[in-house]
């Protein structure tokens, strides 16, 4: 009671207890991780095939010779990702809005949008890439319209737009109908109500869910290698044949992780923040 500033500066009983608890769990985690690592480092080399695996998967010279080339090829992944993303954003928004249509005259649009999401969410990505990536160029279109880049990317765009549209639609549905009522009661058109009142709130609510899809897309770009583009996965394959060594695949994996781990952490952080706000 004599000096309040002193009591606020000193950690309370609870903080002391929690700090101790944290230190203890930190010790447990560190010890167990070290034990597992040690076991791996000591035991794996004892395996009869370890020398062979080390030479073909963790080969230093091959790694340093191929890594720059892999990075180069990864630029193509980034390019495909970068041009697909805005197109996915637009297409998914259009589809989500069509699915929300209530006016009977526009019902065919709604039906079409529903069919679209059902079909493309119901197929394995790789199958769509094969069908479109081989199928359309097979029509014998003139250059550049026979390029697997275009049709492979289109396959990704179609599949991911279906998923993103579904996420956006769930966001739209999560906005209470009283928001719509309020906007309409002011004399706003239903288009303006969607654009200025419902969508901004809906999109903000689904940012974390869409972040996860963006990360998945970033990885799935590698699937395009099956229809032609020499992106990182394909390039790693080329190096593998060249050096008769699997190390380039490990290099490619590293490059993916450098991008996806921070992105995943960020998505989790957003998700966590949202939950805290909602509570």
């Amino acid at each position, binding site marked *: 009671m004599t000096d309040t500033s002193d009591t606020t500066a000193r950690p309370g009983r609870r903080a002391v207890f929690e700090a101790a608890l944290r230190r203890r769990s930190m010790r447990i985690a560190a010890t167990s991780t070290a034990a597992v690592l040690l076991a791996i480092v000591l035991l794996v080399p004892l395996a009869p095939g370890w020398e062979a695996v080390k030479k073909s998967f963790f080969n230093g010279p091959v790694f340093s010779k191929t890594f720059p080339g892999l990075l180069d090829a990864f630029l193509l992944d980034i390019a495909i990702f970068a041009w697909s993303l805005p197109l996915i954003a637009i297409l998914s928004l259009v589809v989500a809005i069509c699915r929300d249509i209530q006016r009977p005259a526009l019902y065919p649009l709604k039906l079409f949008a529903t069919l679209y999401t059902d079909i493309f969410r119901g197929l394995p990505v790789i199958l769509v890439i094969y069908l479109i990536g081989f199928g359309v160029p097979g029509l014998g279109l003139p250059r550049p319209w026979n390029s697997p880049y275009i049709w492979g990317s289109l396959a990704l765009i179609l599949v991911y737009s279906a998923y993103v549209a579904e996420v956006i639609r769930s966001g739209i549905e999560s906005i209470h109908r*009283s*928001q719509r*009522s*309020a*906007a*309409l*009661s*002011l*004399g*706003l*058109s239903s288009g*303006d109500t969607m654009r*200025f*009142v419902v969508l*901004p*709130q809906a999109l*903000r609510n689904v940012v974390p869910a869409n972040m996860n899809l963006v990360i998945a897309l970033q990885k799935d770009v590698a699937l395009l290698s099956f229809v032609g583009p020499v992106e990182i996965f394909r390039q790693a394959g080329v190096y593998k044949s060249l050096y008769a060594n699997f190390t380039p695949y490990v290099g490619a994996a590293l490059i993916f992780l450098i991008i996806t781990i921070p992105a995943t952490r960020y998505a989790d952080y957003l998700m966590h923040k949202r939950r805290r706000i909602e509570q």
Partner: protein
Amino acid sequence: MRTMLRLAGVQKSFGTHHVLRGIDLDVDAGEMVCLIGASGSGKSTLLRAINLLDPIDDGEIVFDGVDIAEPGLDPQPIRQRIGLVFQSFNLFPHMSAEANVMLAPGRVKGLRKAQLKAPVTELFQRFGLGDRMGHYPDQLSGGQQQRVAIIRALAMQPEILLFDEITSALDPELVAEVLDVLRRLREEGMTMILATHEMGFARELADKVCFLDGGRIIEAGPPAQIFDNPQEQRTRQFLSQLL
């Protein structure tokens, strides 16, 4: 007195639930009409019907000489002239108070921000919120939010304002500041229909009180008659339950 709004035989069902069973009501310009009645008696439904948020099944809603219940009529221009304030405020949470108010005049009337700034600021000041224009709804008290909602409706310069139990969601100490706003509007001659549980307020300010029960207006008249000398058994029952 000019009749601003005339309801005749208004019917509305939700599925098999017959909520409005023939409502007749005249509202003159500058009049304040209070709707009272038990929960579920159809007050909100009636106000939403007048604002054309829910289409009615049968009957007429004549507003300024035009039957606005005509099926197929574009509701948007009508809604601009009829304001509605909700029990739960329904402010847009992603916009500042000022943006909430400016959205509709900006989009619907095509007014630019610069043109709106002065009249909107004046509205905020008039209702004691001049220093809250930049706040977001979650930074405002319930009473302040409801006043912003009223300002938002007023900014469209409606010819009639509908209020749906706008003080029911408020803490008791915040009710007075919102009722004060209504008092001011009353003095300025705004035509208003209020669904309310504030009987004291209805008695003080209403020109006409309508008692809704079972989807009909059972009894209507000046507040003195309804509150002090109700003719219908049901009205008496309802009022005695409140005491």
